[in-house]
């Protein structure tokens, strides 16, 4: 089996372990809660054993499992060992961390080489592999910020951000309500709706289409976000001005994509509709809008991100004392970096959920499309 052959990642990990052993201890001598030699040897043992064992396993799954346990067990021990000793980690600590990371890399490499037949396992792998990658970004972030004692202002460890999120849920919820449920949703619905209606109009009137389309394409490259101060002046500090920015930002992508989508149905199908003597509106609703659905959903997805960006940046120009953009710009001024990260984490989560909902609706409504069905066009 090719998967369990010796690999350079595991070899390097073992080498790093050996170097770490010669340069003990893991923490500086004056550390208040030094790691016991038992813990240290447990970490090294875990890495070395799982590395060597991965060679001996006869199946890829087994060696991946061994590597997974070894890498994450070692990482967990390393992270818990740093508690109370912030900024005291010495070189061997980071060598062991790198060794554990190499094992995880090897584990991911084996997992991505697997070709399971069952679709459930394939889905599981498709989720597990990026999850391991994401987890390691957090592990390395946590270990490096706390181990090397990076100033809190520069980069707070993820655990501090998580604690901050847990401690300030009411504030975060109020900000989400102000920014997302008021400004973003209203602006998104109105902007996308207006873009859609104008696109239908442009489709009906050829002159309008030929004039609007080049302008729409041009506008998509412009820094529209710059209208934010003007909107704040016109509509005041509250959410209405943010919604206005969102409307302007989401209008053009929707317009351009819908117009392109309405041109997507083929001549054959349109001719067929003609032979049925169907009216313009019948053709529109029964043929052309369904054919345009993938384009429209593409615009809806692009707009879900643009709407959030528009609302947050518009809040940098002035808001009532609530809102995600307001919180980010004021807390950074007070150097509460963990609150800023908490707000960014919430924004990222909101963005992903927003996108995910649109994608789910797309799957439900364009179930016939080849890209959703999994077939070929």
């Amino acid at each position, binding site marked *: 089996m090719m998967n369990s052959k010796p690999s350079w990642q595991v070899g390097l990990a073992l080498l790093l372990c050996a170097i770490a052993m010669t340069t003990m201890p893991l923490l500086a001598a004056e550390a208040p809660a030094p790691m016991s030699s038992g813990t240290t040897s447990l970490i090294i043992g875990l890495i070395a054993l799982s590395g060597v064992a991965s060679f001996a396993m006869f199946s890829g799954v087994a060696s991946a499992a061994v590597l997974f346990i070894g890498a994450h067990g070692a990482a967990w021990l390393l992270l818990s060992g740093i508690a109370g000793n912030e900024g005291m980690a010495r070189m061997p600590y980071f060598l062991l961390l790198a060794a554990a990371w190499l094992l995880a890399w090897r584990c991911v490499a084996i997992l991505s*080489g697997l070709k399971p037949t069952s679709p459930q396992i394939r889905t599981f792998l498709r989720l597990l592999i*990026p999850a391991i990658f994401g987890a390691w970004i957090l592990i390395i972030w946590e270990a490096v910020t706390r181990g090397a004692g990076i100033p809190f202002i520069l980069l707070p460890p993820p655990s501090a951000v998580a604690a901050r999120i847990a401690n300030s849920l009411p504030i975060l919820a109020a900000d989400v309500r102000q920014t997302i449920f008021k400004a973003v949703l209203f602006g998104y619905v109105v902007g996308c709706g207006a873009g859609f209606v104008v696109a239908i109009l442009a489709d009906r009137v050829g002159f309008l289409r030929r*004039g609007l389309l*080049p302008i729409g394409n041009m506008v998509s490259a412009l820094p529209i976000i710059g*209208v934010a*101060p003007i909107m704040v002046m016109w509509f005041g500090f509250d959410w209405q001005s943010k919604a206005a920015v969102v409307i302007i930002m989401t209008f053009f992508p929707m317009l351009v994509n819908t117009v392109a989508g309405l041109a997507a149905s083929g001549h054959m199908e349109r001719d067929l509709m003609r032979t049925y003597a169907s009216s313009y509106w019948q053709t529109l609703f029964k043929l052309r809008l369904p054919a345009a659905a993938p384009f429209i959903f593409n615009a809806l997805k692009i707009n879900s991100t643009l709407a959030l960006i528009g609302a947050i940046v518009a809040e940098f120009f002035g808001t009532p004392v609530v809102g995600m953009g307001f919180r980010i710009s004021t807390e950074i001024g007070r150097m509460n970096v963990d609150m800023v990260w908490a707000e960014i984490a919430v924004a990222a989560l909101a963005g992903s959920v927003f996108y995910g909902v649109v994608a789910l609706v797309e799957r439900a409504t364009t179930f016939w499309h080849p890209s959703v069905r999994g077939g070929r066009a």
Partner: protein
Amino acid sequence: MDRVRDKIIPVLTILAALVAVWYVAAVFMNAPFQRDLDRRAGETPGTIEFIGKTLSQPKPTMPAPHQVAQNFFENTFLRKVTSNRSLVYHSWVTLSSTLLGFAFGTALGILIAVGIVHVTALDRSLMPWIIASQTIPILAVAPMIIVVLAAIGVTGLIPKALISTYLSFFPVAVGMVKGLRSPEVMHLDLMHTYNASASQTFWKLRVPASVPFLFASMKVAVAASLVGAIVGELPTGAVAGIGAKLLAGAYYSQTIDIWAALVAGSVVAAMLVVLVGLVGKLVERSMGGRPA
């Protein structure tokens, strides 16, 4: 002749209509304030005079197009480029960090794309995150990057360029992965029958095939990069740049200045996109591509 009829005339008509709407909007939006002014001064101007006044306020709610054009012209062509009030100067400040960030971002994007195409583990683990990161309002981190880097003594061009890098590498990475994977199986098999090595296949087949994709995504990236640079100028009260100009205008209600800065930003954006498009065309032509 067809081009004039099908494209230029409709575009110009729509633009003219927009300007007309803009004038009407300017009259209506500036009217309440003007009425207020006239009442205090005890004047009762005629309709024509009143409209003329609404279109020439020094700090209008909605500046008229000619006011913006005049301000833009004065600050672009009549001032020395080193002057603090020159839009060329501010545009240049923003443009320099845009270009630096764009160069970093493109390089990083290409590097990541090459890694993703050649290392399966990276493809399976990194690609989902790159796609997921598209759904995140990344611009929200802009103020933090600026302030945090300023706290450790890094100010000026680099922090803004970092934001631009951050915004521009995603489109390039995604487009480049698509491009490097665009050669068909037939072509790859052909390279195989020539006994081409992996690096030969890469340089002689994959890279040339990816060029159109690269330039298409670079157009998106350069626009994103400019937005990043402008937003990067907002939070710290930067003294120069289009974003700083917008912020200063917002503080002092210099609406005409805001609009002129917006126009300047749009001109820069259009120039950048057109430039990338032109370079793309030149490169494709020099590689023997034919216009599709």
